[in-house]
């Protein structure tokens, strides 16, 4: 490995990989994307999607996956231009150069991952109940979130090997479901008519859109691949392939699993179940004791959900850390623990926010309002991510012709236009269907605003004299 000598001082040529060793290969990135995407939905949400559409709910997954993958193309294009960890905030900033908009996007990213972590934790508790029924679900979710913060603080999951093993476990769970499907079809019991059966409340189209909006949650998380963009080997070539490849692989798995679930379990059962994929296993199609399979499968589902939630927690603390470095949130968020090199304050704060969301949901339920916490927080996540995704695609189009070289991956423009349309249609539908989610959205946005105001009025001491807020940004652009 070649070194950069001291003269000229500290010039590590950022373009030439000779002096810089990057550790995330295309294969690792593929598994990272697959793992993050797979955990985030199918284990948690499949029952809700089935309930919205009926037997044909695999179509909802197919459409949701397609819209998300098109958005993935825009991310891939932007990552090859700007291989940095900031993701959407950076792209929107480059495209619009508008500080309030950049702040809004950053807070939206933060809020989306708060809501996602809350939804995933609730899903985790549903599977946990299958293994050990005693502790109340709220307690399980809170302990889960706090444990993940601690795990991130210590840094256990930093190993790429751990990440890959968790992804393989996730895939194994869904392979079990597919084997059940093949056996079932082999036994000649499958009634394929169910796959084109719509049991929607309103029109079939609205039902499918409802399903798509929920299924969309299953694909969120892929944008966190930007976390490792900077450490990806040869990002211009690797990133588009690994990101889009991972998403397509996840999409194919989703559609197949949705079909198997529809074939093997009555839609009504799927809809009522908290841990719907377990119903497929419980149908007793494989010649293995159902009790054993149930526990095995519940454990696999918990690994999957944990993997995705861990990445959400990493994203939250990174965003808070980055915002603190930029002086838009108070300085403690930038504090790093001396031995662990972790942003301990950001981790604690993020865990508290997610816990507060979960407790709010629980209190509302106790007060008789009747909130389905999984669905509500998933909807909140989807609102934020649809907004972010649409803006990212617009940014990708707006940044065409800038910072491009021969290696830059360019996504087909017509696909991106369809992507914007798809994201906006879904956003419109979700807002129309569940306007109460807007309270949660507003609460999370206000939290971001509160942190900003706190820093604005009380946080001036840590800024060097004579420098205004945002000056650094201006300098970066030079």
């Amino acid at each position: 490995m070649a070194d950069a000598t001291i003269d000229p001082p500290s010039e590590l040529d950022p373009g030439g990989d000779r002096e810089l060793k990057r550790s995330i290969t295309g294969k690792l990135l593929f598994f990272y994307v697959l793992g993050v995407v797979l955990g985030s939905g199918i284990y948690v949400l499949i029952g809700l999607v089935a309930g919205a559409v009926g037997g044909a709910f695999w179509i909802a997954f197919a459409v949701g996956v397609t819209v998300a993958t098109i958005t993935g193309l825009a991310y891939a294009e932007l990552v090859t231009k700007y291989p940095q960890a900031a993701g959407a905030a950076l792209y929107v900033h480059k495209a619009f150069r508008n500080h309030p908009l950049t702040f809004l996007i950053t807070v939206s990213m933060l809020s989306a991952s708060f809501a996602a972590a809350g939804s995933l934790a609730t899903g985790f508790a549903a599977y946990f109940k299958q293994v050990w029924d005693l502790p109340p679900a709220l307690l399980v979710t809170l302990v889960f979130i706090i444990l993940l913060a601690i795990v991130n603080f210590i840094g256990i999951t930093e190993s790429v090997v751990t990440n890959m093993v968790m992804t393989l476990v996730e895939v194994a769970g869904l392979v079990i479901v597919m084997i059940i499907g093949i056996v079932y079809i082999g036994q000649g019991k499958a009634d394929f008519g169910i796959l084109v059966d719509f049991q929607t409340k309103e029109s079939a189209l609205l039902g499918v859109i409802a399903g798509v909006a929920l299924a969309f949650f299953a694909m969120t998380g892929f944008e966190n691949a930007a976390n490792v963009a900077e450490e990806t080997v040869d990002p211009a070539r690797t990133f588009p392939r690994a990101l889009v490849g991972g998403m397509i692989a996840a999409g194919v798995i989703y559609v197949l699993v949705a079909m198997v679930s529809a074939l093997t379990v009555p839609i009504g059962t799927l809809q009522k179940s908290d841990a719907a994929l377990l119903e497929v296993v419980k149908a007793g199609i494989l010649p293995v004791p159902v009790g054993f399979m149930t526990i095995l499968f519940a454990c696999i589902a918990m690994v999957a959900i944990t993997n995705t939630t861990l990445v959400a927690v990493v994203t939250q603390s990174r965003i808070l850390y980055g915002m603190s470095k930029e002086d838009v949130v108070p300085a403690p968020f930038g504090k790093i623990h001396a031995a662990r090199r972790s942003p301990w304050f950001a981790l604690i704060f993020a865990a508290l926010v997610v816990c507060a969301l979960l407790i709010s949901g629980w209190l509302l339920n106790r007060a008789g309002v009747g909130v389905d916490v999984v669905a509500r927080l998933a909807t909140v996540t989807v609102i934020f991510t649809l907004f972010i995704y649409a803006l990212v695609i617009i940014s990708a189009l707006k940044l065409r012709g800038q910072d491009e070289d021969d290696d830059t991956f360019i996504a087909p423009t017509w696909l991106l236009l369809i992507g914007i349309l798809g994201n906006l249609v879904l956003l419109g539908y979700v807002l129309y269907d569940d306007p109460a989610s807007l309270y949660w959205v507003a609460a999370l946005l206000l939290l971001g605003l509160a942190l900003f105001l706190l820093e604005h009025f009380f946080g001036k001491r840590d800024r060097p004299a004579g420098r205004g807020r945002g000056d650094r940004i201006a300098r970066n652009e030079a």
Partner: protein
Amino acid sequence: MHVIVATDGSKQSLLAAQHLMAFADPARISDVTVVAVIRPLAAVAFADELSDVDHPQTTSEALSFRQAATNALAVIAAEFEGWGPTVHQQILSGSPANEIIKAAEAADAGLVVVAAGSRGLSETVLLGSTAQRVQHYAPCPVLVVRPAPRKRRRPS
């Protein structure tokens, strides 16, 4: 002799570098390689607390851990300027202890200098730190520079 000096961006790692210079004979050292390791999957992949460049790149829009590592390396490397040995800088990526050990093996190093971040409880209770792992598996002697015992904290 080739010496590897690791930095995690902490002030303690700067103290470690200074400690080496305080007692070592520069005439006996041919090369110093300053090494920074980025942890891609960590919450903060690299935190630079050394450079007073005011983190020009580590903003939420342009969060660049590579830039943070480059800045921290520059600070440590500047310490060694004019001391004698040829100074190299390396940015690596992965698990810190592994990468430091690999760098030591690749350079056929005669000494590895690392900082131990914490004192007391968190070091014993939490799982092994980078310094401990380097100590166990390095192919050469290791200098672990520990923080001074905690004095009464100054009111800030």
